[in-house]
């Protein structure tokens, strides 16, 4: 397994208000796979994603990526780990508001030793005409595509997507999912996609369902569909 998670525990708060969000999560994901983390609100899927991304730390358990243990890393090492291995896409895009589309993507390119060509990415994502616009001049879909561009330009080993279509309409959502799928195919990145939309599981190689901080099911999808074939 490329990504191995072992007995992960995480809780927030203390005393009476203590809430255990992850209760002993263990799973693994193959390199180059698309893995969908499914679950209702509060199931712990975003927390799990954030721990994989090194944004939050687990109370116990371990995460290994390509043999590297995250738990033992200092803040600086975590920074380097994110820089080297991860790309992040959020529901709320989190673009730098005062940078243009091209510059936002270049912010990602700066971190990589060998970034993908910016112009190729802009064209692949359909952002070439919008490259000199700032985020506030873009639609939600265009902003999300920019966020994907920023994440993939450094050709990360793992692309972490937290509800990437949560703020988008049906058509745009499918376009974004299609984009993620194409990126996965073209560059071979491992994609972990958090969603509460059950239909999206059909584009995944692997589907992990969470409820109340525990894995309800962890199965391979043998009848994988293309993103544009999805319907909900």
């Amino acid at each position: 397994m490329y990504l191995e998670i072992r007995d992960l525990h995480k809780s927030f708060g203390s005393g009476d208000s203590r809430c255990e969000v992850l209760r002993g999560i263990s799973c693994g994901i193959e390199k180059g796979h698309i893995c969908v983390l499914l679950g209702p609100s509060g199931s712990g899927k975003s927390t799990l994603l954030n721990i994989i991304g090194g944004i939050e730390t687990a109370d116990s358990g371990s995460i290994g990526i390509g043999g590297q243990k995250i738990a033992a890393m200092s803040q600086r090492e975590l920074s380097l780990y994110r820089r080297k291995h991860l790309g992040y896409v959020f529901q709320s895009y989190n673009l730098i508001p005062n940078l243009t589309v091209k510059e936002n993507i270049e912010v990602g390119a700066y971190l990589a030793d060998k970034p993908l060509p910016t112009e190729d990415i802009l064209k692949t994502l359909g952002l070439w005409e919008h490259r000199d616009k700032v985020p506030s001049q873009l639609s939600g879909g265009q902003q999300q595509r920019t966020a994907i561009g920023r994440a993939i330009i450094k050709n990360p080993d793992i692309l972490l997507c937290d509800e990437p279509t949560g703020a988008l309409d049906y058509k745009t959502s499918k376009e974004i999912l299609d984009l993620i799928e194409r990126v996965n195919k073209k560059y071979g990145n491992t994609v972990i996609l958090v969603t509460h939309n059950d239909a999206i599981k059909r584009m995944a190689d692997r589907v992990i369902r969470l409820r109340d901080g525990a894995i309800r099911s962890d199965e391979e999808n043998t009848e994988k569909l293309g993103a544009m074939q999805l319907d909900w």
Partner: protein
Amino acid sequence: MKNPLSRRLLRELRQDIGKYIALFLFLTLTTGFISGFLVADGSMVRAYDESFEKYNIESGHFILEDKLPDETRAKLEAAGVSVHELFYKEATLDNENTVRIFKNRSEVNRADVLDGCLPESEGEIAADRLYLENNGLTIGDELAGLKITGAVALSDYSALFKNNTDMMLDANKFCVAVVTPETFDEIDENIHLCYAWLNNDKTLSDEQCRDKSDELGEILAADCGISDIVERSENQAISFTGEDMGSDKAMMTTLLYVVIVILGFVFAITTRSTIEQESGTVGTLLASGYTRGELIRHYMAMPVIVTLIAAVIGNVLGYTVFKDVCAGMYYHSYSLPTYVTVWNAEAFVKTTLVPCVLIALTVYLVLWRVMRLPVQSFLRHDLRVRKKQFVPRLKAGSITERFRKRVILQNRSAYITLFIGILFANILLLFGLIMPPVLDNFKTEVLETKFADYQYILKTPTLTENESAEPFCLASLEYDDEEISVYGIKADSKYADFSYLPAHRDNILVSEGFLEKYGLSAGDKITLHEKYGEREYTFNVFGTADYAAGLAVFMDKASFNENFDLDMRFFNGYFSNERLTDLDPEAVSTVITEHDLTVIADQLNDSMGFMFPLMCGFSLALYMLLVYLLSKMIIEKNAQSISMLKILGYTPREISSLYNSATAIAVGVSLIVTIPISALIMKWLFYYYMHEMSGWVSFYIAPWIWPAMLGLGAAAYFIVHLIQTKRLGKIPLAQALKNME
């Protein structure tokens, strides 16, 4: 029902406590100091104004060569004045200081006893309080061989001008004092026959008072030999203090308002930034039915409350702590009588109401502009006032360079405020830094260009055996109401080292200060006129004389004697590097020493010296406050992006190089651009001030001041930079995960 939003104010205060504490402290100290200054100034001005009646200050005085004949006195009294003897003797101390000694005064120009008592017995003296302080003398010590019984303020010497024509008062080397009539008679010095007059009609206007003085002058000129006649408004020893206090007040009030407007913009920009961060909430509140006015009032509340509290506490400090500090400043410069603190409504309005109104107005204007936007703009987090957004293309440079440029463009209003603030802070800093070198430079130039160690001014031509003495002629004329010394110097003078002294009677050399002050140059014609007479003299400016001690013109001695219709052998002064001990003291009018030439620099340094480091400290504090608050705002405004950059894998150092370096560039550019601008403004202000004064001191910026200003600015920025880097490091990664919608 009370607006529930008001409950949020305390939370807002807690959340942004650093900003509010910094602004509060700065506002409190600024308003406190200026309130204290205005209160002290108002109280002092009142004490000064009341002193004319309280101490029966003269309407003028004249000095005669012989005692006033009874018939002339009768003529003067018939002209509507009463005449009072104000004879004095001058004792020169071992340290060359001069003590001008009067008899105890009971009728005119009475003394205010600040400490101790007036002399009652022989061998006692009460002397000027400021001189005693400056020379470390106390009651019981000796002065001019007499025992000091009290520290007094003579009402006709609130500014210790030895001669009315002096450029500056001299509270270090010149003193006035009173003794009993018996002691006065025993002092073995020349008596100066000074008479003060009081106008019987107290309602005369200033112009009528001057006319009266002219009338008395004509009566006296007809009967006696007059050495001097000075009307009260022209007497610097009386009028200088009042005029100076008035100008200080205007300067301090302007300083306060400029600081308040700058801080108003800081409040406005940071509040606007808060609205940007909370735009979703603002939009929701507007959509829920809150009016724009309610929200503007809500966001204005904290700036106005903080200003109001700071102004009130500042005023309390002003009336208690700072009033004494500021009164001490005046007492350190002038020999003022005792003052009583008076309630100053003007100071209250200027330091409490006006700052609140200025802050409220500045914040309101900025908020009104943003709050006019439609509700949807807030809900979409799009608070651009101009809908057609212009995004400049930045092609050149790496992404980090362009990133910094974008940060600067994004925060241009903050950086413009920073630029204006830094410009203002630099003007204050420059003032604090340049004055000591300006005064030192003046002293150096004066000493380098002085003709001789001693200039003896004679009443009548008197011969000396001393071979170092060289005779010269001196007259005093006026140009634009300013006294100009006219020298007639021997063509082969061994003291005045002019490369060429024109021989033609109409051609003169003019001192650099004179040329600079009145914008004259070689080839111009100038007309000088007599102070009391009507005769005018027109000369051609032939060249520049290297002489810094005063405003003067120079001509060949023969030309001088010809121009003034004097015998060719006439002279009325000696240059000498040695004391001329064989001169009859009765024949000597004045001896000008090095100290007399540099007294302006010494006195300015003495009375204002402590202000210079204070100005430097204040300007650096203002500078740091502005950089701190605006860079803090920029970091907070971009917290989401900074958090995202951390998630992407940027190190704190890289992030700091993007955001803090943008501020560093803005600060650096502001510093580099504003330093020469502030020098130009300071030069203009300096010349404006010098034009108001008699004499001239050249503007001079010591070479070390440029790097010092840059260094101080950079050091101050570096401290703020460290704080902001720490702040940047504290922004959590999870910030980006918060749903800003």
